[in-house]
């Protein structure tokens, strides 16, 4: 069955769509959501390609969960349309959208055993017994929970419960999997493992389209093909994960995704054929990857904390000087905070000189032009 023919959640139809084959794209067409007069999601136009993981990240109240709930059908858009594949689902009830959903607190049905939880969607859709048995087995095996089928949710750890919740969502062979802060309730160690497991899962189900809502940038960076960064009900940037990280288009993206340092500079010389522009910060002349700035433009030089070094070498040719304010040792990493002409600059270092300077002393910092990018000063979306 083609995506264009999709009209509802019939098990047979969804089976034909096959997670391993062609997933469905999700298209937001100027979708806005308002509660009364309060707009929580401004007109959003966004496309999630079939088989893609799109992470929506942003602070609390940024509208990311609202966008996900609009796709799920739990929030009715005030305007705009939502399409899954070729089907306009805007007016369809949630149970006719053919989705799988995993939420923060797992929401496993406590009165059902693991196998019954996983079978729930299939039974609700009237699938026959043989198909249910096969799908439950497959889904539990996919998440490594086959031996826990007869347990009740209360007999499982948080991580195991989340795996079952994922299996439950996968068992109906959804066209799109919605993950709403799925790892937020887990402790740090389990969360790291689960991120790896979800990545592994997506590698084994490459056709599965996933909308992943999180406030954790590490989860987004690890899992997502693309990231949409939300702020105040709007997407303030959207693009391939690596691109967004390396070349953030605005201040908010740079700071939210990886807590970049943003040094105010004045462009001295526009980018040449190699793409590097020259800019000045006080007396320092710096080189950074440009994006069409002209000489004289006020700009921000984006430098990641881990790209700053206390020692120079052939690559780290840019040099600025700051006053050391704070040192935070965290085992494998040491975080330094310096003041560079009134701008706080963070450094994350795995290796430091044996004798660390005392706070208050002037410290030179070095970084490579290739590890920087310029972004317009007024693009503080």
């Amino acid at each position, binding site marked *: 069955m083609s995506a264009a023919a999709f009209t509802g*959640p019939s*098990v047979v139809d969804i089976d034909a769509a096959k997670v391993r084959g062609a997933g469905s794209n999700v298209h937001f067409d100027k979708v806005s959501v308002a509660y009364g007069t309060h707009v929580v999601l401004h007109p959003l136009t966004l496309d999630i390609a079939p088989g893609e993981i799109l992470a929506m990240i942003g602070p609390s109240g940024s509208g990311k969960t609202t966008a996900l709930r609009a796709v*799920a*059908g*739990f929030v009715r858009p005030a305007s705009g349309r939502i399409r899954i594949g070729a089907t306009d689902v805007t007016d369809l*009830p*949630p*149970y*006719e*959208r*053919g*989705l*799988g*959903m*995993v*939420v*923060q*607190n797992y*929401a496993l*049905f*406590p*009165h059902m055993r693991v196998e019954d939880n996983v079978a*729930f*969607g299939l039974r*609700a*859709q009237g699938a026959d017994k043989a198909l249910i048995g096969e799908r439950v087995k497959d889904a539990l095996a996919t998440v490594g929970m086959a031996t826990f089928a007869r347990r*009740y949710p209360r007999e499982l750890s948080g991580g195991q419960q989340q795996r079952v*919740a994922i299996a*439950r*969502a996968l068992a*109906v062979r959804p066209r799109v999997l*919605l993950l709403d802060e799925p790892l937020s309730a887990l402790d740090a160690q389990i969360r790291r493992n689960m991120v790896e497991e979800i990545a592994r899962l997506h590698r084994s189900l490459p056709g599965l389209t996933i909308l992943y809502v999180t406030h954790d940038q590490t989860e987004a960076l690890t899992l997502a093909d693309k990231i949409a960064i939300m702020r105040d009900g709007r997407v303030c940037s959207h693009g391939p994960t690596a691109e967004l990280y390396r070349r953030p288009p605005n201040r908010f993206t740079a700071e939210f995704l990886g807590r970049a340092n943003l040094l105010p500079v004045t462009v001295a010389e526009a980018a040449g054929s190699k793409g590097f522009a020259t800019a000045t910060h006080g007396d320092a002349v710096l080189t950074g990857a440009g994006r069409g700035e002209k000489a004289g433009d006020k700009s921000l030089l984006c430098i990641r904390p881990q790209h700053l070094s206390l020692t120079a070498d052939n690559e780290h040719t840019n040099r600025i000087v700051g006053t050391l304010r704070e040192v935070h040792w965290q085992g494998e990493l040491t975080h330094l905070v310096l003041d560079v002409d009134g701008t706080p600059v963070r450094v994350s270092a795995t290796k430091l000189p044996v004798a660390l300077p005392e706070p208050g002393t002037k410290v030179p910092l070095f970084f490579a032009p290739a590890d920087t990018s310029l972004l317009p000063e007024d693009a503080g979306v």
Partner: protein
Amino acid sequence: MLVWSRSGRLVIWVIFALIFGVLFLAPLAVILLSSLADQWNGVLPNGLTIEHYGDVARGAAWNAVKASLVTGFAASALALVSGAWAALSLRLQGPALQRLLGLLFFIPSAVPSVSVGLGLLVAFSHPPLLLNGTIAIVMIAHFVLISAFTFGNVSAGLARLSPDFEQVASSLGARPAYRLWHVTLPLLAPYLVAAFGLSFALSMGELGATVMVYPPGWVTLPVSIFSLTDRGDIFAGAALTMILVAATLVLLLGLERITKRATGA
């Protein structure tokens, strides 16, 4: 622990024992002893006998037990269905309407039960609603008096129920009726059973409205107890009270066991 010192804890226990003993145990103990008393002229009964139980069993006790159990079951079941329905429906309304209708539901519980009985008697004594002298009017009286409690219990359960359960069920393809039957109601089961238990206990002990509306041949336990004690047959009244307590306790314990089995608690 709020009190650390040994002597402090001892004092707290003594106060608790006094309050519990005087307010709860003493009246029940007196009724129990009365039901077993041969004669009672001093501080304690002169002798013990089970004759009063025999007397009430030979009399109308069994019919009274049956009337109370049937009334309790029927009224509680009706109250449970309507209370749960109202609570589930009100959840979909706006907060203002929710508050208003919720308040209306509680009004009968704030009115004296005798007034409820009188109201029903007046309302249902003329055609086309001529229910006076029927068992139905007893059921209705009990239903009116206990429905607020079922509504309150189920509403409290719904308020504690995370919307995630129902939303996830919907996203998996469960239509509203399937979701209600397989997710919402099982998750509410402890509250439903508690609501039923409370309603049943209240119905078993209801006297004020029942005494106004009961027809001949449908004399409930509290009405029988009232009649016996009114005639001065205190010991038989006490025996019947103990039967009422036992019947209620057995049913409530049974309900608790069923809930535990059903919810796997």
